[in-house]
């Protein structure tokens, strides 16, 4: 390699190594998409201003886990669920992947003037039913109403409390070369269901959101692998690809994914092919990614497959040492590509 090329690569490395700075003049939709822009906002503005040192799905305090999440989705109802289901499952799943059994939730509602009482009743019933399935109680909350046009029907915020399970020592920096990468089910269904439900594409396909609580899956993994379960994440915004990128960076390792091993339902494959979107970047609301030491991987996968809703769980790849911080995909065709973090929302291509 020439000196000039070496210098160019070193310059890039120096720029990358700098802590992100939030320099955008205004907030754009990209800041909410879960990719690079979101991380710039969190690591460049929120974390330093609030003195947050570790960023995880939930905070851990004296054996308890605490997390909060806001839900804004259009349309409110979609095949397979509604905002009420999401508001419960999203928060209990952030607790679950921290290794905490969910205990209780608070529920905060921002309602738009003119929202029909039937619609509201439907969503509250959905919250109650989802909380029942997830085994948590809703113990309090808050209600605000804003003028018509100031929000899309309703926004929901839930805060969840859980108790850390003693069997696990989950840690995003714990990944080691050789660890196996598991996913708990079909990938991409929630995001595709929402895109199709918005009716912008005039595409019809039988795709339902996968929204479901994941504690049963984490419980099974902890039981099967114990301390050999390195880390678990739910693959929400930004999909499986974003989870792999975050953890590869956090642990300073590479992740190698075998594309052919990723479980994806045929209608999702078809919709993504037509829309020009990679299903690995599409949001899920009931799929986790687990990293397990090689000696426990087989048992963990078998245990996962016994959990209702996780029948399609699969081992999709392995952790490697080189090149650190990167996610590589072995394509079904026999080549390789880098699977980077998204900059913003996945946008379809013209060509």
């Amino acid at each position, binding site marked *: 390699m020439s000196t000039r090329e070496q210098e160019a690569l070193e*310059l890039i490395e120096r720029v990358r190594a700098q802590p992100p700075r939030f320099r955008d003049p205004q907030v754009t939709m990209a800041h909410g998409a879960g990719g690079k822009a979101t991380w710039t906002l969190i690591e460049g503005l929120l974390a330093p201003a609030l003195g947050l040192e570790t960023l995880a799905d939930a905070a851990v305090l004296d054996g308890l886990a605490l997390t909060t999440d806001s839900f804004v989705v259009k349309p409110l109802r979609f095949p397979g669920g509604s905002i009420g289901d999401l508001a419960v499952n999203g928060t209990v799943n952030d607790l679950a992947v921290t290794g905490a059994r969910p205990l209780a939730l608070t529920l905060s509602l921002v309602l738009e003037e003119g929202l029909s009482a039937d619609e509201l009743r439907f969503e509250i019933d959905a919250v109650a039913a989802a909380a029942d399935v997830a085994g948590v109680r809703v113990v309090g909350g808050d209600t605000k109403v804003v003028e018509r046009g100031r929000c899309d029907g309703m926004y929901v915020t839930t805060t969840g409390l859980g108790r850390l399970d003693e069997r696990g020592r989950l840690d995003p920096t714990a990944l080691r070369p050789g660890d196996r990468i598991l996913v708990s089910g079909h990938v991409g269904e929630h995001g595709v269901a929402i895109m199709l439900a918005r009716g912008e594409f005039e595409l019809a396909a039988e795709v339902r959101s996968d929204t479901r609580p994941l504690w049963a899956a984490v419980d099974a993994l902890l039981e099967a692998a114990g301390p050999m379960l390195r880390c678990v994440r739910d693959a929400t915004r930004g999909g499986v690809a974003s989870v792999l990128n975050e953890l590869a960076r956090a642990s300073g390792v590479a992740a190698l994914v075998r594309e052919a091993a990723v479980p994806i339902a045929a209608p999702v494959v078809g919709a993504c092919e037509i829309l020009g979107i990679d299903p690995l970047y599409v949001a899920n609301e009931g799929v986790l990614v687990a990293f397990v030491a090689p000696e426990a991987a087989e048992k963990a996968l078998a245990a996962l497959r016994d959990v209702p809703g996780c029948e399609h769980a699969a081992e999709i790849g392995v952790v490697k040492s080189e090149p650190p911080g990167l996610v590589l995909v072995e394509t079904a065709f026999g080549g390789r590509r880098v699977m980077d973090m998204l900059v913003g929302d996945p946008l379809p291509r013209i060509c």
Partner: protein
Amino acid sequence: MKYVDEFRDAELGRALSTRIVAAVEPGRHYKIMEVCGGHTHTIYKYGVDDLLPENVELVHGPGCPVCVIPMGRVDDGIAVARRSEVIFTCFGDMMRVPGGEGTLLDAKAGGADVRMVYSPLDALRLARENPERDVVFFAVGFETTAPSTALTLMRAKAEGIENFFVYCNHVTIVPPLRALLESPDLRLDGFVGPGHVSTVVGARPFEFVPADYGKPVVISGFEPLDLLQSVHMVLRQLAEGRCEVENQYTRVVPYDGNPRALEVLADVFELRPHFEWRGLGFISHSGLKLRDAYADLDAELRYAVPGVRVADPKACQCGEVLKGVIKPWECKVFGTACTPERPIGTCMVSSEGACAAYYNYGRFARERAVV
């Protein structure tokens, strides 16, 4: 998926890879340009170049239609989008292409009504549904997408829709190719020709490449096996001393193109005297504008756009990178003034452009070279 998976068969890919190795002359370095951005995407998505021997290098060409739109044209589009009466529509990947002052996504965040569409017909539907607003379609693309814009304009006229306008940035494929080939320092052995464009224009317009410049062209499909076969066909031509236009994509591309689509293009569009290309400068007769008969639907006539020309910084060397004269890291602004976050030239705008790919994955390429 039936009719798709057949063209992604790994075993056939390995077989073709073996035949490619057999077709290369040991010790010779081959540079083959794939002209079309769609091909670049396939190469990247399937890792096609991993199946090529090290001395066969694919050079990514100027055929990414959103990346070649110059900054000034993006700024003009944004100026139109900011008007309160306008619903501004465009293809998804156009929203992230930077002008001199931000992208359409930024304009949207600033209050402009910018909406993504999959087809100009979606924009026309928005015009029907919002008669009190002006709906403007940001038309981009080569001869591939231009016929659908033309047909939409014809329909808008036939239906008497008065609130639909087109901001036309359509370009043609032959002039930029000729501009590249005219360059005395060009270092390319042959071309993988653009399949989608050729469904409209046919393979015949590329005959000047072998005839005038002595370089083989193989029109290619977009699945990974198509590309490997096309690379093999280029190498065969070189090995056998042939130099001609061959059509690998016969299942879709007629040699003389699609006469109906060409007719529609001629009815609606005429050539501009010049059009600017990001990183390549002005190229004569390379852009399309609406004919006078469609002047009422021309966004450039309806709105006084600033029309400011934002000069590409002089140091940008996209042209040289595209011609294979220099590597991305040899460009003066690479990694300093020009980064994926703030790109200057077309090679950095597209995530699959040569410069962006090198910026993001150069470390990885280094690892692979060690292996």
